């Protein structure tokens, strides 16, 4: 296996504590404008790099906007569809766990040119929770843009050393007998958690099941309540 490192969703190195696509109050003819209260060195660096790359003809401002739009069209609803399918189709579940990308592609979700993906199943007394302590790696190809807290220094630092305390703050209380397995996505893989299917959802079809799957449950910072 080899990563191409030119994929859409690669987020190492250029996502340090700033937004997903920062713009500046400095007026540009070629980029969308949003106001920022503070402009950090990272903002200036990103802006300078972007302008140089546009000037050098590596890509255009329109390319950047298109890429931002493409990213923003990906949402946790994609992940929820994958989870619901895994709950209801044992063959799909097996394929998803062993070979995630072909399984996801078969659902009509485009994950070509995105980082490698691994799927982790919460079951049998093991609860996974995902973090990227080094930056903000996240399965953007199926969950979209990560929540701000996921990228915060506080979450990244604390969830590895006191996961039970952090999970309690998210409203997730697990018995001591459950193994909490923190997964630090330090390198080339992104991780999706399949939450446990709540009791009392046996009568729900795939679409209804997808509607109860929360984003946080697919990161491991949420549990799913039984359906009403």
């Amino acid at each position: 296996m080899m990563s191409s490192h030119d994929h859409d969703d690669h987020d190492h190195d250029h996502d340090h504590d700033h937004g997903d696509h920062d713009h500046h109050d400095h007026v540009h003819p070629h980029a969308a404008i949003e106001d920022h209260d503070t402009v950090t060195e990272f903002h200036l660096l990103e802006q300078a790099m972007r302008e140089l790359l546009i000037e050098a003809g590596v890509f255009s401002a329109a390319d950047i906007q298109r890429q931002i739009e493409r990213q923003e069209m990906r949402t946790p609803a994609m992940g929820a569809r994958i989870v619901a399918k895994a709950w209801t189709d044992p063959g799909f579940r097996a394929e998803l766990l062993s070979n995630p990308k072909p399984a996801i592609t078969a659902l009509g979700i485009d994950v070509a040119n995105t980082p490698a993906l691994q799927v982790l199943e919460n079951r049998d007394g093991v609860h996974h929770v995902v973090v990227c302590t080094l930056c903000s790696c996240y399965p953007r190809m199926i969950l979209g843009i990560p929540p701000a807290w996921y990228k915060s220094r506080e979450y990244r630092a604390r969830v590895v050393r006191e996961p039970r305390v952090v999970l309690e703050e998210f409203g997730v209380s697990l018995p001591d007998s459950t193994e909490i397995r923190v997964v630090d996505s330090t390198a080339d893989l992104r991780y999706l958690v399949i939450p446990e299917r709540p009791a009392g959802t046996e009568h729900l079809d795939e679409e209804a099941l997808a509607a109860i799957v929360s984003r946080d449950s697919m990161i491991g910072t949420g549990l799913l309540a039984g359906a009403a």
Partner: protein
Amino acid sequence: MFADGTLVRVLDHTIFGHCRTPLYLKGKVGEVVSLTGAWRNPETLAYHKPGLPLRRLYRVRFRQADLWDGYPNAGDTLEADLYEHWLAPAERAATGDLS
């Protein structure tokens, strides 16, 4: 190359520049869960080099109690993806059994 289940110690190198081994795992002993494949070396790739040869990347599982003093739940674990050149075979002694 490390087989699944091998105990490994994360090397305590200091390198200046980009790397994907978090500080809190340096010197710690864990168990190889699986080989995930081989990727370009981020330590040179980050500086516009080809990052070759490809480096094997392993999922390694640690016991939380081996990582943090006074960690309260003996059964809790942490996994990280670590490149082969950051790992060395380890003994069971120092940090106890991992089964």
